[in-house]
């Protein structure tokens, strides 16, 4: 049984942009504020300073959240057109609403990455921050023995997996972010990347329904595209 991924946009009225994303039992909310005034020590003369803050579902920020922040920042920084807003701050806050497991271990941390990344990208779109490209992320598990791939696996699948991968692609299919862990050969990794690319890159107009994955739903790239399209249609209703 898999829970289909869901996403929504622009529900926080006081932030410039907001989005939520849930994948399986992991659910996060991201909000984006900016470009706004930057602290003097962070100010960059030629580009915007990007800050990512991760807030855990329970407890206070620790080294794990710092780690997530640095990984999210490394994925988001290159897609933002930073030079458009020099000497400003663009702040991205990711609030974990629910994480897949209660324990604080490597797998639950890994499961947080893809939804956080997707929510952050959607919130950036909602805030109207100029982007070079849109990134969408997914998690892939590579099963022991059979070599079967599970896209957007559950916690239980990951426990049995030989290796687990979080991948993000631009809509053009360029690999933007990788976090893979386990024990695997490079050939396996190539297969994993191919599977990830299929779900992440948004299907082109007309072949929406051909990219259906074995997860039963649509690919994450297509989902994000759909959510943004609906939002834009809703916002521009008055023109019709």
């Amino acid at each position, binding site marked *: 049984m898999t829970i289909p991924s869901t996403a929504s946009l622009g529900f926080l009225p006081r932030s410039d942009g907001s989005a939520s994303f849930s994948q399986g039992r992991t659910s996060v909310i991201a909000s984006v504020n900016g470009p706004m005034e930057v602290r003097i020590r962070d100010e960059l003369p030629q580009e915007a300073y990007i800050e990512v803050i991760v807030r855990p579902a329970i407890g206070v920020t620790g080294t794990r959240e710092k780690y997530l922040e640095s990984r999210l920042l490394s994925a988001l920084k290159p897609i933002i057109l930073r030079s458009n807003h020099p000497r400003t701050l663009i702040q991205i806050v990711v609030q974990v609403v629910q994480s897949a497991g209660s324990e604080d271990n490597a797998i639950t941390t890994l499961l947080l990455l893809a939804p956080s990344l997707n929510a952050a990208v959607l919130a950036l779109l909602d805030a109207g921050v100029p982007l070079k490209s849109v990134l969408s992320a997914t998690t892939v598990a590579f099963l022991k023995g059979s070599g079967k791939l599970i896209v957007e696996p559950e916690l239980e699948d990951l426990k049995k997996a030989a290796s687990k991968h979080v991948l993000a692609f631009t809509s053009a299919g360029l690999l933007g972010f990788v976090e893979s862990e386990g*024990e695997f050969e490079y050939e396996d990794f190539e297969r994993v990347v191919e599977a990830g690319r299929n779900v992440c890159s948004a299907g082109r107009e007309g072949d929406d329904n051909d990219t259906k994955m074995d997860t039963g739903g649509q690919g994450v790239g297509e989902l994000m595209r759909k959510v943004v399209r609906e939002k834009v249609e809703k916002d521009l209703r008055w023109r019709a």
Partner: protein
Amino acid sequence: MASSTTPPVLSFPPQTFQKLSPSSYLLRHLQSTPPIRPSGRSPNVFREPTIHTNSLSHAHGSAVVRTGDTAVVCGVRGEILSLTNGEGKAKGGVVVLRSSEDNDEGFVGEEDGGEGELRARSLIVTNLELGTGCSRDYHPGPPSDFAQTTTSRLHRLLLSTTSLISPESLRISDTHATEIETKAYWVLYIDILCISLDGNILDTAWASVIAALRSTRLPRAYWDADLEAVVCDPDLAKYTGLQLGQLAFTASFAVISGVGDDGKSVILSDPDEFEESVCEESVMVCIKEGGKIARIEKGGGLACGMEGLGECVHRARNRFDVWERLVKSALV
């Protein structure tokens, strides 16, 4: 602007050029044939490491690792977590039950490599300290974000990527009782101090952790039923090393794009501080014994595709051999 005399070409000494325009300074170097980095290395060349182990007198194991101008000292110290007094008592009961269940079902080492037990009890405590005057960017005081991130990465590598230490090897049991019961645990404090920082702290720090753990010798600890406490044997001959899993080493890379006219990217192995400050895109590959990949991290850009990652994996495998040889010869 036609003037009769051509103005003299604006020229700077290299050091000034490097400060004025760091990225074009690096690009100019890489555009020469053959491409060469400001440090004089070729793009695929790592710095030569050196390792010394067991040079500290109060740690149970230690290592000093230096690669180029990056140097770290790692000390491992074992302390005892008692499950039988105070707060630990109630909690201890629960864990003992679970760990015996784990053994029956083969849970430990199968599904999470014992990570659950190690994490629940905080048996491994890894910390990286950069506030030692190792570089002008880090000051004494609370760890910077970078230090926290690197600490977290090292901790993950140790607990989940490599499962180097099994919780069984840290248990101290009552061997005289009919039923084996865990009375206490060894807690390993792994402290890494950077004494000189010139880029790529992760690879050097991780190698120092491996070398220090391999050199660690703990006294024989046993449960004394009369004293109701864990007691250690002072006999130096009975000190034993840790049982460690497979070796694994990391290799970090920086990627810079736009080197050629066609925007070709170049992958720099083992970047130094200057290269890290210029290149935004980075890749890290962790290789296990037997050439299997244990971890890939990539972020910060879009220039390095599958071809680039393949190259990184290839270089990381070669680097693994260098580290493996060195670590094995450091402890005879």
